[in-house]
């Protein structure tokens, strides 16, 4: 019995060690100047979008709403098809201006406004907590199911709190993984290689379980279809079975696409870690193909789960092999879930730790005079310390969220919470890229309104449902925001009630942009909004001054208006580049 209880955690440790070895190999190759990040590695690293929320949760949603799981994956497919319009432009701008996070990017779009960077960092920090929480929940519940044969979600003692140990383990893993050195480019070739590896693992496991269920438990698709028809489950194969309106479907597709592009971890792997913009060409079709394969067996697994009367829909992928004696396959499913969780936590926390150190802590230290660039001989140690602390706090924040409301939300609801929080970065970034009159006040107001609506319509109901707030606490506001009515009834939205919330967030963003347009702070002192970067759009991705010069396509050295602590921050980062890497952020390579 004890052996069985220890087997799964030991296996998890062995698997994490394996991922660490892959990352170490990638880092060593990078130090030797060998590039392992080809287009396939880049494409597979974008698969970090599929976390445990997708790995476990998509089947759970399909069991209740048939094809309702699809929109948040169709959004990324369309976004990748449109990559020449958006992602490629983001890549060029980020490379020209040495942008290392989405907060940097948004601030840079509006004349290097540090206020925007701070706001984006704070929203990302809060918005990512549910996503971290679902990873902990996924790993902890699957360990319980494999070890004890049941899911234990009650309040645990310290000694039996699996989620806490998973959180601490993942935090330690991330620190070892991504903060061994400070690199001015913020690139981690080893991490990207490990993430690509885990994308392969989870895809192979999904296909293996799908094949097992379809061709082992049943004799093939026709046999499963006959059982489905006999059980009267045809409804799940139609659009009516999703329980979504056309508007809901459209908005969820939009949220999926925006979230895919603007989640901090997606920005990290798609933009910051990109070694060659040409890799986007392969990813534009290979990632949709990856997603198609990943989702190929979701519906058959969900239908089999209903037919086999699996008690916890979100754990169907694990329960089906377990119930039929395929323990080895169940262990493989667990490892797939673990790798999805580990990769997500590693990339997300590294991206957030970079934002925390570069946009929150360092500017604060420099502004208050607690840190002086001249006085500090080796700032890389301080930077690493800040990032390591940030990683621990971010993971513990996710753990806290899991403990507070984790038992009341399904996997996909966690995921959608974070997806919507990140999707809010889309409008200000897209406005900044495509609309000359967009200004930073509009972006700021839009983000504040969008975040407030997100908190009220999604975060608050989660806490109401968990019993931390009086169920009627949201009533007065719910009367005014009638579209957000589910907040007062069921707690979190089901598939049929997300649309109005998305609409509200979008409306708040547009209102903010409109308000900002009305304010038009262009005439005030300070750099002209978007002058340095947005001009790239009308000059084919080059800086306007460069376009005027004609021959030299490099970004002008004087162009970005680096002000105040931003300059100091760059000075700090530029003093600790990795050997053999770019000399300093802020200069053209």
């Amino acid at each position, binding site marked *: 019995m004890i052996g069985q209880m220890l087997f799964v955690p030991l296996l998890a440790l062995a698997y994490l060690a394996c991922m660490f070895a892959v990352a170490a190999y990638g880092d060593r190759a990078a130090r030797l100047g060998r590039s392992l990040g080809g287009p396939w590695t880049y494409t597979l690293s974008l698969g970090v979008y599929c976390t445990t929320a997708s790995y476990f949760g998509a089947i759970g949603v399909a069991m209740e709403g048939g094809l309702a799981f699809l929109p948040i994956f*169709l959004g990324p497919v369309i976004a990748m098809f449109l990559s*020449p319009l958006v992602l490629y432009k983001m890549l060029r701008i980020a490379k020209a201006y040495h942008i290392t996070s989405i907060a940097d990017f948004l601030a840079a779009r509006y004349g290097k406004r540090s206020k925007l960077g701070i706001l984006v960092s704070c929203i990302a920090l809060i918005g990512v907590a549910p996503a971290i929480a679902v990873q902990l929940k996924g790993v902890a519940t699957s360990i319980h199911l494999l070890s004890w044969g049941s899911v234990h979600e009650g309040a645990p003692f310290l000694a039996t709190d699996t989620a806490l140990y998973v959180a601490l383990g993942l935090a330690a893993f991330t620190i070892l993984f991504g903060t061994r050195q400070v690199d001015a480019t913020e690139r981690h070739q080893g991490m990207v290689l490990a993430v690509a590896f885990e994308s392969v693992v989870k895809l192979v496991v999904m296909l293996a379980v799908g094949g097992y269920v379809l061709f082992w438990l049943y004799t093939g698709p026709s046999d499963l279809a006959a059982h489905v028809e006999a059980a009267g489950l045809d409804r799940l194969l139609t659009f009516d079975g999703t329980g979504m309106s056309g508007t809901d479907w459209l908005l969820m597709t939009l949220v999926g696409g925006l979230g895919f592009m603007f989640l901090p971890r997606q920005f990290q792997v798609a933009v910051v870690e990109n070694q060659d*913009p040409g890799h986007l060409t392969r990813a534009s079709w290979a990632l949709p193909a990856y997603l198609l394969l990943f989702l190929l067996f979701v519906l058959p697994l969900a239908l089999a789960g209903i037919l086999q009367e699996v008690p916890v829909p979100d754990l169907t992928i694990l329960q089906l092999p377990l119930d039929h004696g395929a323990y080895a396959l169940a262990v493989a499913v667990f490892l797939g879930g673990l790798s999805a969780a580990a990769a997500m936590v590693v990339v997300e926390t590294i991206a957030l730790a970079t934002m925390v150190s570069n946009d929150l802590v360092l500017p604060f230290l420099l502004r208050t005079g607690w840190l002086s660039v001249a006085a500090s001989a080796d700032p890389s140690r301080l930077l690493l310390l800040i990032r390591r602390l940030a990683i621990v706090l971010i993971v513990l924040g996710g753990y806290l969220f899991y403990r507070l409301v984790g038992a009341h939300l399904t996997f996909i609801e966690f995921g959608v919470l974070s997806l919507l929080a990140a999707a809010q970065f889309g409008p200000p970034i897209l406005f900044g890229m495509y609309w000359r009159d967009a200004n930073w006040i509009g972006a700021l107001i839009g983000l504040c309104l969008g975040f407030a609506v997100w908190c009220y319509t999604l975060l608050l109901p989660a806490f109401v449902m968990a019993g931390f707030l009086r169920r009627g606490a949201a009533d007065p506001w719910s009367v005014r925001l009638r579209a957000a009515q589910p907040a007062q009834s069921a707690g979190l939205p089901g598939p049929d009630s997300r649309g109005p919330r998305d609409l509200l967030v979008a409306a708040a963003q547009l209102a903010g942009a409109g308000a900002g347009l009305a304010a038009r702070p262009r005439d005030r002192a300070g750099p002209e909004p978007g002058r340095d970067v947005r001009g790239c759009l009308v000059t084919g991705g080059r800086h306007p001054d460069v376009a005027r010069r004609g021959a030299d396509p490099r970004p002008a050295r004087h162009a970005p208006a680096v002000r105040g602590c931003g300059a100091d921050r760059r000075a700090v980062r530029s003093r600790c580049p990795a050997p053999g890497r770019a000399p300093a952020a802020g200069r053209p390579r």
Partner: protein
Amino acid sequence: MVAIAIVTFLLLMPPVFELVDRLAPGWLPAWIGLVVLAAIALVARTAERAPDPGLADRTAEPPA
């Protein structure tokens, strides 16, 4: 690629789904799969034949 994305988006809209449900009940998942597969094939063909978008940047970079 943009045109393919727009057509794909339109073919994956709820009105089209309702039409598919009416014409071939139970075949909606197959329809979605086929549309996405066809779009992937077309995008792959277009993208891989197009010149490398990063090439212009690299060749234009003057010697250090």
